[in-house]
């Protein structure tokens, strides 16, 4: 499925990823954890193809080299990024946006486009998954959405786009426990043998709901430790300090303090 080999990424001359290796098999869910500034989001954007990064190394999805592709081509190849901060697009109807997204990808793959009526049916099913009300579709994309609504909208998009590889960047940030449950429920429903996921998070609590097959610790732009879900539990108790050989300047000392309740 996904092979990441010696991936480096720099932005504005600052090196952020320092030779990252990762293998993700079909149907697997990998959690990536790490302190602030360790390169988690950069990794997500390097996979999705955001402009402005100087990257090297190789990334292949189903044998196709992603790094030379434009973001929209990667989307067509099956890469989906659930944004940490979903972007607002005022005046653009959410339903229209979703259908355009789905049809853009279908068009790029040479598939027939979905008409408005058929799409509405599919969209309604997907909305049930994340417990969204119908009026969501009539609102402008993310404009005036609460934090929880934005994140649910991301999962809705994932459900509609049916990606091969879903990267969820801090999907749990800013969520209360009820919203977290809903979102995790949606994500779990979308797990399948043909879909791989990379779940990026600071905190272990998300992994109570989305059980990863593997957990990786990302520090200073490379993966320093990999294991199963017990690694996340270890991090909960001990923090990242043991993986970092310098002071954690911007990470909380105990990332999980007060979260587990």
């Amino acid at each position, binding site marked *: 499925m996904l092979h990441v080999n010696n991936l480096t990424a720099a932005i504005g001359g600052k090196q952020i990823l320092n030779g990252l290796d990762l293998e993700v098999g079909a149907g697997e869910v990998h959690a990536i954890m790490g302190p602030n500034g360790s390169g988690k989001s950069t990794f997500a954007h390097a996979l*999705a*193809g*955001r*402009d*402005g990064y100087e990257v090297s190394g190789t990334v292949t999805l189903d044998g196709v080299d992603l790094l030379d592709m*434009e*973001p*929209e081509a*990667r*989307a*067509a190849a099956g*890469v*989906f*990024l659930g*944004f940490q901060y*979903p*972007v607002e*697009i*005022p*005046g*653009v109807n959410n339903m229209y*946006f979703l259908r*355009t*997204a*789905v049809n*853009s*990808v279908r068009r*790029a793959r040479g598939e027939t486009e979905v008409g408005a009526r058929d799409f509405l049916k599919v969209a309604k099913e997907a909305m049930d998954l994340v417990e969204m009300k119908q009026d969501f579709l009539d609102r*402008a*994309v993310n404009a005036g959405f609460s934090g929880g609504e934005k994140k649910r909208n991301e999962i809705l*998009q994932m459900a509609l*786009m049916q990606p091969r590889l879903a990267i969820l960047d801090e999907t749990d940030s800013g969520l209360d426990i009820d919203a977290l449950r809903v979102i995790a429920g949606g994500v779990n429903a979308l797990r399948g043998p043909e879909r791989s996921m990379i779940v990026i998070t600071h905190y272990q609590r998300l992994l109570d709901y989305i059980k990863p097959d593997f957990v990786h610790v990302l520090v200073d732009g490379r993966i320093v430790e990999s294991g199963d879900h017990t690694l996340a539990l270890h991090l909960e108790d001990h923090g990242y300090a043991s993986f970092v050989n310098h002071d954690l300047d911007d990470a909380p000392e105990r990332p999980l303090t007060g979260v587990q309740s």
Partner: protein
Amino acid sequence: MSESTRTIEELTESDYEFGFSTDLDTDIAPPGLDESVVRLISSKKDEPEWLLEWRLKAYEAWRAMEEPDWAKLEIAPIDYEAISYWAAPKQKPILDSMDDVDPDIRDMFDKLGIPLHEQKMLSNVAVDAIVDSVSVTTTFKETLLEAGVIFCSFSEAVRDYPELVREHLGSVVPVRDNFFAALNSAVFSDGSFCYIPKGVRCPMELSTYFRINSMNTGQFERTLIVAEDDSHVSYLEGCTAPQRDENQLHAAVVELVAKDRAEIKYSTVQNWYPGDENGVGGIYNFVTKRGRAHTDAKISWTQVETGSAITWKYPSVILQGDRSIGEFYSVALSCKRQQADTGTKMIHIGKDTTSTIISKGISAAHGQNTYRGLVKVLRSAENARNYTQCDSLLLGKDCGAHTIPYIEVKNPGAQIEHEASTSTVGEDQLYYCRQRGMTEEDAMSMIVNGFCREVFNELPMEFAVEAQRLLSVSLEGSVG
């Protein structure tokens, strides 16, 4: 000539009809403007004496006026002596098929999704397939006639309804109003006249009909719409199709009169030739548009301005009657080297008058876009309210957006709100859309159309769709 073809001719070449019957080819006035030219125009059009006097008064006024220089526009000097103010309209060659039409224009037709029969009409292609539209047009005419609505060329109106024209012409935009209005009043060639009798709701949007009709609008166009008490009309001027014209200077005047409880909705889509990337060519568009709203009347202007090298235009409402309502919804796009200085004037005179201004300016490439708007509340206007929202969108680093609101309030009970924003299409927004599979151009088009949503919502349905496409097509190549 078959009956159907003749109808089309009348439709598409209405400028030729009256006063142009003699010796078309040789009737061209020498360049320059003096009293004899004004007299020539009037006599060629067989106009009554009062109209000639009116024109001459306008000409005298114009001579004493200076070209306005307060707009934020850089314009090469216009040589008014080099323009010929009366020329027999050129007969457009009739083409055999769409293959003979300029490929660029054909391409644009396709992108805009204009139906084939309309494409043919707009490009003067002679075909039988037009029959469809002819019957449609004839039906239009009959329907309007039954309702008592008068809709004809200005020349026809002068001939057939002289009292109506005389009563209202210049009643909203006086001949001395401004330099370009005075010029238009002196030399206007033709235009449209629309009259809605008391209590009549015009049975259709005057749009499709007008679109076909509008292709031969002159350089100095004059429009007058009179809506009697309790009547209603929605009028659409212009066309999303590309419009080429050899006349560089256009100075039109539009006057609207909404009597008690009447409603006029006036929508414009302007797509004149904008000139090239280096600012060569393109139309200079100096337009005076104003409506007078009587008691409980409503006048609503909606405009989508994507063409012209220079746009100088302030569709305004005089809120004269108590509880009258004025609205202005505008999208102005400046690409290439286009400059637009546009906005509105809302003059509150009556009590409890309300005005709304929603302006969306988009600047791309080297475009310069200025919103200039006046909200004036006179002492008599108790409880006047205005809401103004001016949003500017910048695409690129070399363009500019400017917002210049003027607020003059003489009545302390007025409530005036003004909101303004300037934004750019963010990298973030583009990236987000592209991550969802859209190309950069599609994403840009979607974001820009979203920005204009509130204005497009005011357009008649099928035109809203075309306006969106027009915006996308106009923006092509401005991305990145």
